[in-house]
């Protein structure tokens, strides 16, 4: 089968890969680029575990084809910390116990960061609806919502 050559930017680095026509971006990230932080929970756009930013917009990478990343920029959980300095959301998810098993955590962090980038002072309801596409089966969401709200307050205070 002939494969498609794709040139793109992932977490600020130029990368290129060959993918099959039906490989999703998630397949490429995980299987070719070894960026396994994005998870496959459903492959149907229903769980959000595969959430990444594509040109700054949140997408389920399981619903994007690998070939569609041509010439675009992709940000994954692996690009969220700045070297060894965690993003405040990452720090607070650890400190405030906002994860149990942690498999939903990468997708939720990417989605929450995107929210705070645009909406520095979200209400609880806004956070709940923004994260409604990210399933977590362990926590009941309580500590996740609190961690996001606390981080937003902290980042506003620091700004």
């Amino acid at each position, binding site marked *: 089968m002939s494969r498609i050559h794709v040139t793109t930017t992932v977490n600020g680095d130029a990368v290129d890969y060959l993918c099959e026509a039906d490989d999703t971006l998630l397949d490429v990230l995980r299987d070719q680029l070894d960026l396994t932080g994005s998870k496959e929970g459903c492959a149907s756009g229903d769980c959000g575990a595969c959430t990444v930013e594509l040109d700054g917009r949140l997408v389920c990478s399981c619903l994007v084809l690998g070939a569609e990343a041509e010439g675009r920029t992709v940000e994954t959980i692996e690009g969220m910390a700045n070297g060894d300095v965690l993003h405040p959301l*990452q720090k607070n998810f650890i400190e405030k116990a906002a*994860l149990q098993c942690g498999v939903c955590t990468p997708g939720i962090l990417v989605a929450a960061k995107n929210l705070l980038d645009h909406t520095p002072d979200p209400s609880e309801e806004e956070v709940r609806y923004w994260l409604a*596409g990210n399933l977590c089966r362990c*926590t009941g*969401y309580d500590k996740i919502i609190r961690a996001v709200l606390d981080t937003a307050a902290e980042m506003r205070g620091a700004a």
Partner: protein
Amino acid sequence: MAKDEFEKREFKVVGTRVARPDGLDKVTGRARYGADMSAPGMLVGYCLRSPHAHARIKSIDTSEAEAMAGVKAVITRADFTNVPASDGTRDILDNVMANDKALYDGHTVAAVAATSRSAAKAALKAIKVDYEVLPHVTDVDAAMLPGAPELHQGRQQESVPEGFSQNVLARSQYGHGDVDAGFAQADVIIERSFKTAATHQGYIEPHACLATMGNDNQGDLFCCTQGHYMVRNTCADILGMESGRLRVTASEIGGGFGGKTTVFLEPVALMLSKKSGKPVKMTMSRDEVMRASGPTASTSIDIKIGTTRDGVITAATGEFRYQSGCFYAMNGALGAMCGFAPYDLENLKSVGWEVTTNRPKAAAYRAPGAPMAAFAVESVVDEVAKEIGMDPIDFRLKNAADEGTKSAYGPTYPAIGLRATLEAAKAHPHWSAPLGKNQGRGVGCGFWFNFGGDTCVSLMLNPDGTVSLSEGNPDIGGSRASMSMMAAEELGVPYENVRTIVADTASLGQNEVTDGSRVTFAVGLATIKAARHAIEIMKARAAATWGIDAEAVEWVDGAAQPAGPNAGKFPPLTVKEIAATMSNTGGPIAGHFEANAEGAGVSFGTHICDTEVDPETGAVKILRYTVFQDAGKAVHPDYVEGQLQGGAVQGIGWALNEEYIYGEDGTLQNAGYLDYRIPVASDLPMIEPVILEIPNPGHPYGVRGVGETGIVPPLATIANAVSRAAGVRMTSLPMSPPKVLAAIKAN
């Protein structure tokens, strides 16, 4: 009976909210879950699954698939030539690779390993299976009737009376007293029948593994599981190899809730690897997870409770009919044991039934069997209280089990926390807050046994005085942090000085699965005992250094010191100092502990929930939710709260939305998160956890497991709230909008 281990003490580390050691890996995407590992030269494996609910497999032709490009191995049941030693493992083998019949939609009938996903998928399509479709049954009541389509013959136990189909595998009875005499004393008797749908554990991480197996009959397996020793023992039994020749390493686990306490892909991947001579990675799709792993039992339950006008229950009976899919599982019995466990009853008869149907083999789901039983019992308790005009918490307090009560399932309770949770609920502002129109408040209680089991821990002192702790239970929600905390507490060293890892099966003795809410209790107990063992060695080294008796040394705040003035005057020797010289004082220092841990300490919880029912649509909104649970001692309160909150929300999903829906043809109609809808953030309010601490006599710090009880009360609590809000008793789960609307209309 376990001896009294508990000793009151002031804690320094236990009870604080430290950061977990696996946190950084999990917030940066570095943590390796089941599907995140790869090996050089690895193949990918996929299963071919039955499209029929019940069918005889007349033949399977794999020749075309085998000849395809990139295909390195194709297996069917014929490749599993070994007969497993135990009946339970035989069922597991029959479940992971169908024998002569496919027993449910999604049952694996063959598997392929190939160099790429596309090659493997193409090969699956080329396998020809000749099925003879058989009549099927998926409903528990229908399956019990004589003349129902039968899955197996000759598996019915002697406990089952005449007049049932072969699908009824077992009947068990619990209780005491004389229920007829008890009902004769009752002023009010209420009798109701209930149904609950099967639900799935719904862990976000699908099953996945990476198997490497050679023709030297030696293997390695990396997989997401709640118990890698169980995986090793089961796979070895299935493959007919010595268990010591298979090393299993547990990946980080993306949720389990009981659903990863058995094997699905692992024996298949090992067989594919053996046949191809290459590492094989397998990952389930969500569709496969739903169709072929995990679900709970669906149930049909009858409850009858009689009470006096002043609120004393005089008698109770329950019939708990549970279908657990295509093989035997003890679920109805657990329901029959747990349903009435919160009450002190003079006269009780509680009967559990185990039934097979053409559905996937049920796996444990958080307090397996108990939530549905509590739903039925607590609903009738609520109705009885209403009927005699008594506050539902007061009614429960009046009949609550206490220390010394003979439990519904036999044993007499030691100190328990049920009454404390009820009193805390009654005193909480939630219980007296005003309610609006179309709103209702419910309360419910729940019980779970908790478990101990085989446990093995090793604690190593490093030359710089830090500590390495090896345990053998996959960490599903922060248990490495809890173990480090308990070791630090006991040794008297900072939390950061103890690093806990989950060892593979070749590095530590046998450990029971991470189940039964056992880890913080049993592994915690073993950790404390291993630390005490190390302390004894350190005291002996100090004694030898000082030239005094080991008995004359005591351990205080992380250091050995002479016990009293008669022992001599020596400055204390800290862990760090003892470690620095250990090479010269006798060699390495390590403590260990192995036991089949007893004294797990039963657990109770009480929940309160406010709901609003939309009379136009039947939609239910959860307005407020509070959980009261006895944790014995909360080692890491954040993670205890997380268990309480997570359990409650899984219960909310079970009560309101989640349901396995089967079509006329017996195939699953909603095998994905879109149609099998678990709660999302916007469905929910904050969940307030209230932790009570009634020390468990069986643990040195008083710890009880907390993982499971949290899912037991919600089904009943929400049903009671909805019934009060809608003015009509809801007896069938889930309480989806059409069902609630129909109930309102019929009223």
